[in-house]
C-alpha cells in the first residue's frame, strides 16, 4: 500500500459495518441515509390530507375507499451522506511519546473512515486546519477522490498554532447542506471558543463527531526527573520539576477533559476520547457500531 496509514486488512474487516448518520442528511443523490424531505423510498412516513396542487398519483385510493377522504401517503426520502473530516494540523498534533504521533493516528482514522464512507456510496471531504493555512477538499463520492484525500493527509505536517475554531466556523458557514462533521484534534484551544464553534455547527443541523486525541503520557505525566518542556506550537520552554507539579497538572488536564466532554454533550456531539496507544481499528469499530440505529428505530 502506498500510504502507511491505510491497512487493507483492517479496511476489509471494517467494510461490513456501515457508517450511519445519526441525523437526517441532505444529500444530492439517493442513498441509504434518512433525508429531511419526503421521497419515494419504500419506508412509509405518514398520511396527510390532500391539498390542491398535490400530485394525484400519490393519492391513497384505498384510504379514500375506506373514508371518502383524500389522503396523500408519504414515504421517507433516502439520500446519501456527506462527511467532512476536520483535521487539526497544529504543532501539538505532532506530539508523540512512545506510539504513533497524534497526526499519524489522525491520518489512520481519517483515511480509513473516508475509504469506508466512499465505499458505501457516500461522499467524503477533508478540511485540514492550521493557524494560517487551511486546505479544503469538498466531499465527493468518487473513488478517485479518495486518492486526493490520502495525498493531502500524507503531505500534511503539524506546525504552528491551531486554526480549529476558525475552521469549524468556516465549515458551518459554507456547508449549507446537512453533513457529518468528524473532528480529529487534541482540542488544545479555548474551550469556550470551541463550544461556540460546535454550537455553530449544531445550529446548521450538522451531525458532529469528535475524536478527542490525547497521548497517554499527557494524561499520566509520569516523569521522574526535571525536564525542559518545549511548547510544540510556539517553541517557548519551561523547566519544571514533575514531582512538584504533577498533582496540579493532573487536576488541570482532567478538568480540561471534563469540560470538553461536557461541551460536546451539550451539542449532542458523538464524543470519543482516545489515546494514541489504542488500536485505531477498534476505535473505528466502536465508532461505527455505536452509530448503528437501535432495533425498531430508524
Amino acid at each position, binding site marked *: 500500500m502506498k500510504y502507511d496509514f491505510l491497512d487493507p486488512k483492517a479496511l476489509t474487516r471494517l467494510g461490513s459495518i456501515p457508517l450511519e448518520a445519526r441525523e437526517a442528511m441532505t444529500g444530492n443523490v439517493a442513498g441509504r441515509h434518512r433525508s429531511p424531505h419526503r421521497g419515494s423510498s419504500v419506508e412509509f412516513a405518514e398520511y396527510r390530507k390532500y391539498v390542491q396542487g398535490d400530485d394525484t398519483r400519490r393519492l391513497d385510493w384505498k384510504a379514500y375507499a375506506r373514508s371518502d377522504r383524500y389522503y396523500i401517503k408519504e414515504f421517507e426520502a433516502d439520500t446519501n451522506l456527506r462527511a467532512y473530516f476536520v483535521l487539526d494540523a497544529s504543532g501539538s498534533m505532532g506530539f508523540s511519546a512512545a506510539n504513533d504521533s497524534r497526526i499519524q493516528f489522525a491520518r489512520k482514522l481519517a483515511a480509513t473512515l473516508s475509504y469506508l464512507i466512499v465505499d458505501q456510496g457516500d461522499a467524503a471531504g477533508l478540511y485540514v486546519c492550521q493557524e494560517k493555512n487551511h486546505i479544503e477538499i469538498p466531499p465527493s463520492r468518487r473513488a478517485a477522490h479518495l486518492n486526493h484525500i490520502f495525498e493531502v493527509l500524507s503531505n500534511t505536517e503539524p506546525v504552528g498554532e491551531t486554526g480549529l475554531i476558525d475552521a469549524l466556523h468556516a465549515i458551518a458557514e459554507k456547508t449549507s447542506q446537512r453533513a457529518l462533521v468528524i473532528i480529529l484534534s487534541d482540542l488544545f484551544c479555548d474551550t469556550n471558543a470551541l463550544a461556540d464553534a460546535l454550537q455553530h455547527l449544531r445550529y446548521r443541523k450538522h451531525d458532529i463527531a469528535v475524536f478527542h486525541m490525547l497521548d497517554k503520557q499527557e494524561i499520566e505525566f509520569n516523569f521522574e526527573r526535571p525536564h525542559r518542556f518545549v511548547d510544540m506550537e510556539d517553541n517557548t520552554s*519551561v523547566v*519544571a520539576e514533575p514531582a512538584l*507539579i504533577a498533582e496540579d*497538572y493532573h487536576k488541570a*488536564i482532567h478538568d480540561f477533559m471534563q469540560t470538553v466532554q461536557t461541551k460536546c454533550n451539550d451539542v449532542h456531539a458523538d464524543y470519543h476520547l482516545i489515546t494514541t496507544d489504542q488500536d485505531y481499528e477498534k476505535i473505528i469499530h466502536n465508532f461505527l457500531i455505536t452509530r448503528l440505529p437501535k432495533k425498531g428505530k430508524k
Partner: protein
Amino acid sequence: MIVSFLQQSFLWGLLAVSIPVIVHLLNRRRHRTVQWAAMDFLLKATRESRGRKKLKYIIILTSRALAIAALIFAISRPLLGGFLGWGGAEIDTVILILDRSASMEQLVEGGDKSKRLGAIASVQKSLESLNSRRLILIDSASAIPQNVPSPDALDELSSTSPTDTRASIPSLISTAIDFISENSPGRTEIWVASDLQKSDWAPDQGSWDAIRTGLNDLPQKTTLRVLSMASPIEDNIAISILSSARSNDELVLNLKLTRSDAEGPLSIPITFSVNGTRTADQVTLIGQTYQFQKRLPLGNKEGSGYGFASIPADTNPRDNVSFFAYGDDAPTKTFLVSEGGESATWLTLASVPTGFGRGQCIELMPNKAHEIDWQGAALVIWQAPLPTGPVAQQFSRYIEEGGAAMMLPLRGESDTTFLGMQWGEQSISPQGQYFIVEEWNQNDGPLRNGMEGTTIPLPKLKAIRRKSIVGEATTLASWDDDTPFLVRRIIGDGTAIFITTLPDYSWSNLGDADVLLPTTQRMIKLGDSRFGSAFAAITGSPKSKISSGEIRSRLDTHARSVSSNAPYEAGVWKLGERLLATNRPASEDEWLVLEPNKMESLLEGTHYKLFEDTGNTDSLAREIWQALLIAMLIFLAVEAALCLQPKIKNKKS
C-alpha cells in the same frame, strides 16, 4: 543548652548534609528536553505549585538534610549540657579548682545537698562522659595541685571536704596556669566550681591582668570553664564574733548576726559556751545585720579560756557557730612620739582619759623612738618628723602586723617620707576665717558614726593652720576647700591615719572639739584588737597553721575534726603552747555574687565559658545519640510520607 561531642572529628561528616541539595541542583541542571503539547496545563500547574508545593519540596529536602545531620551528630556521640560546651570533649587533663569555702556549704534550694557536693557530683558525671581523663584537683583551702586517680574518689578526699576558709579564686587560677606551664599536661581545661562569691573572686584585684595574660600565653589554647553554683541564698543566718576580750571578771563579746532575708523582726536563740558552761539567750534581729555586745560572767576563773556562740541549724551549717578564746586582761599601751608642747598634752589626755579604762601612755622624744615597745604597743602617735632608717622599718613592720598609727604634722619642715607619704606645705587660714571640715566618711574609719548612729561633731572643729599631706591614701575627711583633713593607709593587717592639723591653740581646736578623743580611742581599740587577736585567727591563715614542733589538738566540744582537714576548720585549738580560736573570714558572710558582666570583663579575651548549675540536673552532660537516631528516623518518615503521597494519588486517578 549547649551540646558537645566526644568524637568531634566525625562532625566533618556534616558536610554530607549538603548532598541532598547538591543532588537536587544537579538534577535540575541535568534536565531532559522534551517537546510538549499540553503546555497550558503545565504552565498552570507550575504557577499553582509555586507556593505550597515548593514548600513541601523544601520540607522534603530539609528532612533529608536533617536526617543526615542527625546521623552524623549521633555517631559523633553528643553530650547534652552547657558546662562542657563545644570542644569540651577532646582534652587530656582537667584541672578542677574546687571552691570549698564556707559559703559553698549552703544547701542548694530544694535539696539536701550543699553547693560543694552538688558541684562535685556534676563534675564527676561530666568526667565520666569524658572517658576518664587525667584529673588534677586544686582545692581552695590548700591551693596545692594534686592528682586524683579517679573522679569517683573526688567526694571521698579530705581535700574536697567542707572548710571554714575563704577561696582566693584569682590565686587558684594562677596556680593552675603555673601548673600547666610547668607540667605541660597536654590539652588541658581549667574547671572552676564556685558559688561566685564576690569576695572570693576579688574582682578589684590587680592579678586578673596577669591571669588573662597567663591564660592567653599558654602554649595550647586552654579553656576556662566556670561552673556557677550561685543559686540564691535563702533562710540563712550567720553568726560571727567580732572581738572577745576579758574585762575584769567578765568576758566581753562583740557579735554580729547577718541574715539573707530581711523580712521583719526575727527572734533567734543563741547558745553561748564559755569554758564548757553553756548559757542561752534570745536576740531579736531587725534588718539584715545586727551587732550587739554580750557580757558573760567569768567568775573567779583566772587566765585564759575559750568557747563559742551558736545559733540553730539553717541552710548553711558552717556559719551557725563562731569561736573565741581570750587571755589575761592587760592595760593598753600608747606610745606618743612628740615634739612636746600643748599638742602632746592633748594627745596624752586623748589616749589615756582620766577615769576611763586601764590605759597607759608613754611619751618619747623623737630621738628616743627606738625605745618603743613595738610588740606591746596598741597605738603609736607620731607628731614629729616622719621616721627614717631602722625606726621606720620597725614602725612599718609594726603596722603590717596589725598595729595602729596616728600621724600628726610637725611644726617645722621635713622632707622625709614614710609609707609613701610626706608632709607638704603649711597653710594658714585668712584673717577671721577658719578651715572647717564639711565632709567625712561616716560609715568607715575612726570618724565613723557610733553604733547608735551618733555622729562625731566634726563641724565644731576650726583650724587656722594645717599642713598638706602628699601621697596615695584614702581620704576619710576633707576641709571645706577639698584638701584632706584625715587620710588612711592600710598596710598589711594594720592601719595608719594622717591628721593634717594639731591640737594646739596656734593650729586648731582639735583638742577640745570632741574629735581627738574618739579618734584616738578608736585607733587604740583598733590596735589593741591585735592582742585580742592573739587568740583569734582566720581559718586557713598562716597564723592558724602549726609551726615546727607544735601539735594541733581541738579544745572545743562543738564538733570533731579529721586531722588532715583540721587546719581548714573553725574551732578552738591548742597549737603547741598557743591557744587559738579560728573562724571563717568575715567576707564569707557577705553574700554578694559576681555579676556575669563583671566576670566577662575579668576574663575578657580568654577562652572561658560560664555555666550556671541550678542544682536540679544530675549531670552537666549526658549522651543523647539515641534521641538523635530517633530524630533521624522521624525525618526519614516525614520525607517518605511527603514523597509517597503524590504517587498514591496518581494511582487512584
